[in-house]
């Protein structure tokens, strides 16, 4: 290893959370002008090692060298000063401030004259920062809350790039971006590469990694597995290294038949709500209905409306028997379940135990009169959680200690235990690794075969095509296309209806 072209060297890194060993003796080298992909299942340590590099977490032991100098940042501010910057998986922006203020948060003193903040100068500078990342469509003077999810992410990117980092860490950012936003990010990465700077790129999407990265390092359960150069990329090999065993190429549904039952279980009529304009559809028994579109097309709010969480401005939601659904309580009486895209904030109580989470929807079933006994809760969990094979120490373990995939299983166990017949799943595999993903697809197929119905809202076209009996594509809040399950369906065909 020549010191000359190494930008960052990480040696013998260890990190534990309680008894979980997140990193064990991991070493990495990042060259100048390199885009290094980090792959591995959830809990493999890829986010941990990169957040240690950006000093969002501190390592237990291990050495780091930046440009040949020892590098031991104590805080993300110090890391930033040394040129290491990370864009986070979860959102790290302030909704109530303007775009400009978000970009310059913590750097306001740049625009202070005689104790007063020069807003105009700040907005102008923000404009330049946005243009520099090719996000010309975002206006700097607007409050962030008026922007859609994707543009907020881009504001974050602009903030990161304004500090002109030598190393940019991109952690699962692209899952929140549509094609346009992704292209912007890829362009930035290529620009950095051309300038001899480096990028650490983390993604679950193997195809994306193989397209974007020069080199890929594979981690598994906190252990370094291998580093592979672009010319040797081979998807099945990489996948096997990540999971540690052979994975089937195709983990979606294998049958090509579409739902034949005509019994309607949920009916949305002329729904208007925020971005959604006049959307009507019916969900049938035993059907997986896939919703696709860009991040801001209104499909996520539609899931909210179907569960009665958000009242529509116009239109009605009806169960199969014609009962109006106005709130979650009524939806649950009709055996409807909803798993939010923001699973950790809205569906689960992460500071509670697995037991508390799974039982929450079913206390009426578990209780004897008004009383709840521990053994009844345990029995309930035994009945409903064991099929899902949640990786846990015991049912009293806190949900926040679980990986994304296992958290999703807890969310599913909660609704399976409740006995739901209609599942509304918003991004059911968001931020989930391949192994658990296939579990969830398998479970969805089983539910379908049992005659349950599923609305799957997703930003991943491949899973919508792979799983749905019927696909509805939304564009700017309106239905732009509806498709039956068929062999020759392609992503490109759907994308044409989305943009």
């Amino acid at each position: 290893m020549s010191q000359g072209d190494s930008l960052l060297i990480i040696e013998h890194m260890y990190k534990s959370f309680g008894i979980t060993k997140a990193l064990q003796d991991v070493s990495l080298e990042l060259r100048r002008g390199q885009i290094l992909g980090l792959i591995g299942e959830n809990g493999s340590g890829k986010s941990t090692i990169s957040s240690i590099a950006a000093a969002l977490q501190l390592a237990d032991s291990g050495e780091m060298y930046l440009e040949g100098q020892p590098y031991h940042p104590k805080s993300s501010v110090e890391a930033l000063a040394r040129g290491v910057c990370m864009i986070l998986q979860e959102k790290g922006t302030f909704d109530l401030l303007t775009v400009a203020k978000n970009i310059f948060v913590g750097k306001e003193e740049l625009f202070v004259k005689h104790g007063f903040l020069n807003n105009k100068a700040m907005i102008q500078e923000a404009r330049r920062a946005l243009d520099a990342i090719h996000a010309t469509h975002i206006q700097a003077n607007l409050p962030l809350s008026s922007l859609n999810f994707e543009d907020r992410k881009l504001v974050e990117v602009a903030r990161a790039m304004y500090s002109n980092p030598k190393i940019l860490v991109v952690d699962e950012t692209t899952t929140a971006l549509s094609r346009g936003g992704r292209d912007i990010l890829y362009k930035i990465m290529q620009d950095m590469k051309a300038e001899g700077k480096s990028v650490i790129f983390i993604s679950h999407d193997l195809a994306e990694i193989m397209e974007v990265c020069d080199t890929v390092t594979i981690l598994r359960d906190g252990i370094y597995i291998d580093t592979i150069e672009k010319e040797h990329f081979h998807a099945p090999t990489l996948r096997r290294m990540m999971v540690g065993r052979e994975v089937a190429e195709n983990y979606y549904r294998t049958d090509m038949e579409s739902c034949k039952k005509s019994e309607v279980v949920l009916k949305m009529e002329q729904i208007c709500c925020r971005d959604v304009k006049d959307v009507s559809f019916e969900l049938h028994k035993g059907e997986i209905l896939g919703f696709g579109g860009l991040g801001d097309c209104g499909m996520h709010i539609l899931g909210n409306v179907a569960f009665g969480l958000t009242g529509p401005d116009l239109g009605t939601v009806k169960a199969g028997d014609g009962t109006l659904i106005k709130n979650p309580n009524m939806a649950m009486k009709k055996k409807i379940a909803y798993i939010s895209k923001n699973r950790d904030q809205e569906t689960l109580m992460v500071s509670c135990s697995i037991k508390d989470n799974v039982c929450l929807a079913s206390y009426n079933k578990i209780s004897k009169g008004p009383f709840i006994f521990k053994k009844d809760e345990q029995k309930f969990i035994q009945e409903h959680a064991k099929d899902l094979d949640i990786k846990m120490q015991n049912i009293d373990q806190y949900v926040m200690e679980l990986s994304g995939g296992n958290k999703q299983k807890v969310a599913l166990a909660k609704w399976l235990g409740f006995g739901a017949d209609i599942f509304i799943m918003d991004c059911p595999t968001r931020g989930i690794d391949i192994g658990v993903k296939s579990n969830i697809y398998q479970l969805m197929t089983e539910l379908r075969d049992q005659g349950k119905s599923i609305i799957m809202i997703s930003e991943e076209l491949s899973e919508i095509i792979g799983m749905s009996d019927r696909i509805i594509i939304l564009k700017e809040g309106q239905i732009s296309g509806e498709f039956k399950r068929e062999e020759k369906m392609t992503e490109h065909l759907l994308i044409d209806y989305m943009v």
Partner: protein
Amino acid sequence: MSDTKAVIIKTVKKINFQTIFPFLGLIIIVALFTILTKGKLFSNNSLRVVMNDGIYILLGTIGFTFLFAMGMMDFSIGYNMGVSCAVACIVANSSAGIYAAIPAAILTGTIIGVVNGVIVTKTKIMSMIATMGMMFILQGGVLVILNGSVLQAPLALMDLYTNSLKIGFILLFVIGGYILFELTIFGRVAKAIGASPEAVRQTGINADKYKIIAYTLMGAIAGILGFVSLARTGSATNTTGSTLMFNVMNAALLGGVPMTGGPTTKFRGAVLGTLTVSFMVTGMTLLRISAQNQQLIKGIIFLTAIGICFDRKNMKVIK
């Protein structure tokens, strides 16, 4: 080998500081005042004082535990007790007779509790602010009802203040509270609301209903305490209940009941904290520390307790 290590780590993790803290606090306070008062803390007389003061703190803290578990607060309990006491006093002096004072006090407290609950849930004002507003209103209310002076209750009322009444209330609330908190749907949901109100909403649970019940319970307790105070002192004054809020907050904190709510809330915390504060108050009185200085010391302990036991891990920014 690694198995035993895991077990050890798990055990150590289980017996964390938050769990020990309330026990440790109680032991330290009892030991300290036993030494300082040369054992007088455990004389018959002192123990009676502990019970007399403790009953207010105990019942108040039990009601508070439900609110804390949901991540909510009630600043108005002290003056709720004052208003309930004043209303009960007026009723006792009226032709309705002294026994009518009991339902009068409880009803008054309950109504105030319901109003608190409705305000907090329907207007969505932060519970701290909403109940602080209620506190100011009730503070004024007491003055209006009592016309600025002291109201005497019929002497016969004081005969009701017996040991069996006190012990009855204590047993009822400790046992009933424990069952309600640890063994019912209400208790589970209360903790769930504290952990994540949005997850509770998205599970189709009407959180507002549970919040209103918790405030109603708190109000009813304040009403009962209003009556107990009237029976004990035979009068209603504008300072009745004014120390309740502070003692209850202290007891909840020293008992390790987390202000942020959620699943780590334990009912035993209410009982432990009450014992600690009651012994502390009685001990200071035995040492002839003046009321003002007691207030000062309690304030220091209050801040120290928050500083030590506050769960900073789960709180990034404090509003």
